[in-house]
């Protein structure tokens, strides 16, 4: 597999290798391109398209796309394009941060439970507990206990953002943990792990070097689904009155609000839906590429 010449080449960092492999994956590069594009769009967009997403022009309600409103307007005459831009900021941030939190928690608990037999029982029962907890009452309690404190400390918007990201993260790590644990259990019995153990590799290095890279693929799948999940969960929360204040658009809520206008103003439904789908798709391709790139068996082929 490995070329003889590559052994003579100057030592390269592992990450450069990963990047090289990643670049050969067309879908991944396109996915990353699109993702970066969307991020830039929502980051810079509002400075270029300066219409306030919350500005109401009631005479221009329920309009189809026009020069003035490229994506039309909603039932109060707010510009859909600026709303999609503003909503993207929140949705992407919620998606990425909540996903990262849930992934971190899930991988951490999954690896610990799978690797250390002693912790397995307790950690898996903890997972059961979290799987069983009803999300809505949990959120109601969290909001009751922490909303005012967070609002005082960070202001209404950042406060709610932290609360929601935390709530989504803490209630969505369990599947990742279960799957990672399962894979770790299987890995532990493989020869290379036994070999590494026999030469006295300490658990920390063992996990970082041998275990984590080999459970990357389920983690990547979880990550892809996690972003979508976080965006959708946020929209469900807004719908139930537990999300962001109503003058704070997000993709999920834009989609929900426009669902009933589907027959009246079909243009309005398409954009937030498309934005969510394409973002999730691009993250998925990135995940695919990253998984391949991280797999030493594929890399260099």
């Amino acid at each position, binding site marked *: 597999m490995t070329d003889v010449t590559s052994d003579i080449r100057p030592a390269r960092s592992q990450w450069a290798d990963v990047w090289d492999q990643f670049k050969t994956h067309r879908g991944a590069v396109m996915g990353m391109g699109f993702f970066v594009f969307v991020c830039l769009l929502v980051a810079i967009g509002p400075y270029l398209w300066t219409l306030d997403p*919350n*500005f*109401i022009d*009631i005479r221009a*309600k*329920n309009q189809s796309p026009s020069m003035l409103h490229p994506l039309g307007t909603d*039932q*109060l005459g*707010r510009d859909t394009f600026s709303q999609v831009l503003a909503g993207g900021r929140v949705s992407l941030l919620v998606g990425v941060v909540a996903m990262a939190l849930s992934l971190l928690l899930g991988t951490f608990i999954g690896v610990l439970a799978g690797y250390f037999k002693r912790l397995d029982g307790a950690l898996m029962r903890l997972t059961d507990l979290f799987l069983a907890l009803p999300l809505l009452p949990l959120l*109601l309690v969290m909001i*009751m206990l922490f909303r*005012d404190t967070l609002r*005082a400390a960070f202001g*209404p918007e950042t406060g709610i953002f932290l609360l929601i990201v935390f709530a989504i993260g803490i209630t969505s790590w369990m599947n990742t943990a279960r799957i990672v644990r399962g894979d770790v259990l299987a890995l532990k019995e493989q020869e290379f792990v036994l070999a590494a153990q026999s030469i006295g590799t300490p658990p920390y290095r063992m996990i970082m070097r041998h275990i984590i890279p080999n459970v990357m693929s389920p983690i990547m799948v979880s990550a892809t689904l996690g972003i979508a999940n976080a965006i959708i969960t946020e929209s469900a929360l807004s719908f*139930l*009155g*537990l999300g962001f*204040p*109503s*003058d704070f658009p997000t993709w999920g809520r834009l989609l929900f*609000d426009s669902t*009933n*206008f589907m*027959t*009246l103003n079909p243009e309005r439904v398409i954009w937030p839906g498309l934005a969510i789908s394409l973002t999730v798709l691009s993250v998925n391709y990135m995940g695919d590429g990253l998984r391949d790139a991280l797999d030493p068996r594929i890399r260099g082929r």
Partner: protein
Amino acid sequence: MRMKSILIGAAAALALAPAANAGRGDAGHVNIIYWQAASILNPFLSGGTKDVESSSMVIEPLARYDENGNMVPWLVTEIPTVANGGVSEDLTSITWKISPGILWSDGSPFTSADVVFTADYCMDETGGCQQLAKFSDVTNVEALDDLTVKVTFGKPKPFPYGPFVGGESPIIQKAQFADCMGAKAPECTEQNFGPHGTGPFRVTEFRANDVISMEANPHYRDPNKPAFATLTFKGGGDAAAAARSVLETAEFDYAWNLQIDPAILTQMAGAGKGTVVSAFGTGVERMMVNLTNPDAALGDKRSTVEGGPHPFLTDAAVRRALSIAIDRNTLAEVGYGAAGKATCNVLPAPAIYASTANDECLVQDIAKANAILDEAGWAVGSDGVRAKDGVRLSILYQTSTNAVRQDTQALVKQWWSEIGVETELKNISASVFFGGDQSSPDTFQKHFSDIEMYTNLFNGTDPEAYMNSWTCAEIPNPGNNWLGSNMPRYCNPAYDALSAELSGTADIDERARIAKAMNDMLMQEGAMIPLVHRGRVSAHSNTLGGVVLNTWDSELWNVADWTRN
């Protein structure tokens, strides 16, 4: 009465010769959808509108309100009044005379014992009866003979039509519920799910929070009614889905409470399969101004009279400016369509109580609002927000979660920004906001905000209890466990005096004068900012005849008269 309806029925049958809707059960099956499903058929154990209305097809009160808000005798021969001797001169008792020959759906006769039992059932201390307010001040209910019931009150009642009038206070059968008194009430599942009644339908199958099957009551007093042999009362989904199933797919014949965007409703009605109907009752969407200080730093004294006055909402100029900066007509049009009218009163109906003294606010006037604030010394700061003596006009505006309310919030926020007022919006899940849980900071009673918005209304046509909501004694505070309905924390001895006067006055015109004066006092002092007079919106399919939308009683009050056309 009966002769007349037979004649009308016959005339209808002649007019629509082949339809032959003359006899009981001839019209076949009817489908009703309530997007909130009925959970129980006993309104004494659940006061939810869906439960009251679904049970109103089975169990009935002695008298009902018609679509104009007039009382009509239902199971009695006439409405007792002082004039006909039914109400005693000192206003402390009322005597009902039951129509002879009424049968329960199991064939047994309907007697005064059932009426007395119903009162005992609801007034039992341990039963948790949800319609207890209907029986307030009742000291005794007795049967004078098989068909006569006398209700005695502990004090003069100028309006003695609380018990046994309207959909919230129907009669249940003594024989069926005898073992279900007090603490045992909730255990009687079979009775609560299938009460015997005097109404046009009886229950064949009840699935809680899902669907009810009914059939025509064979013992119903009018032998030709109801026209429908069977009925399905389906629940679940949301308002838009319910509207769609009547107006666009015609799977259902009647849908209740369609509070969705008027533009969507109009488009659905355009399919030509059904008709949207609306009518106005007493409901008003209003803002409750907080006259006390909601500052979190006050701890236990937050939003209480002890915590001190509000930093800026106690300034009448600010309240007036906030009110006239709002375009109520737009709010009504955008949020409610045909079922909303701009209003400047919290007591807009019935017509004799409606005041016209406050109509200044019907027309939005941003310039004037700005002028008022300028004059009062609120100067626009560098951030565009007005301030005086270091106090900024920054408002926390809360309401329950509901698409229309969030649209209203967004519109109001924009108008207020035009007069230099900063607004932070907050919406709270309805079950928390209206829940009254002592430990929650987000209930409407606690009012830990500057402005809160919701709809309040009263049943029937008498506003006395409703207008008493804003007396000093009704202010929610930790001492009374936040139980009280005076959310603005408005306290004015003159208002309390009017309230006392109202409860001692029997003459209807005099009552109207006092109630109007109370409404005007509340409005002119700006304790509340009324926005929209809200009606009910329902829809029925074009093949369903006889629907008369009634906002004063159950919407299904005349289901016996419904026909297929």
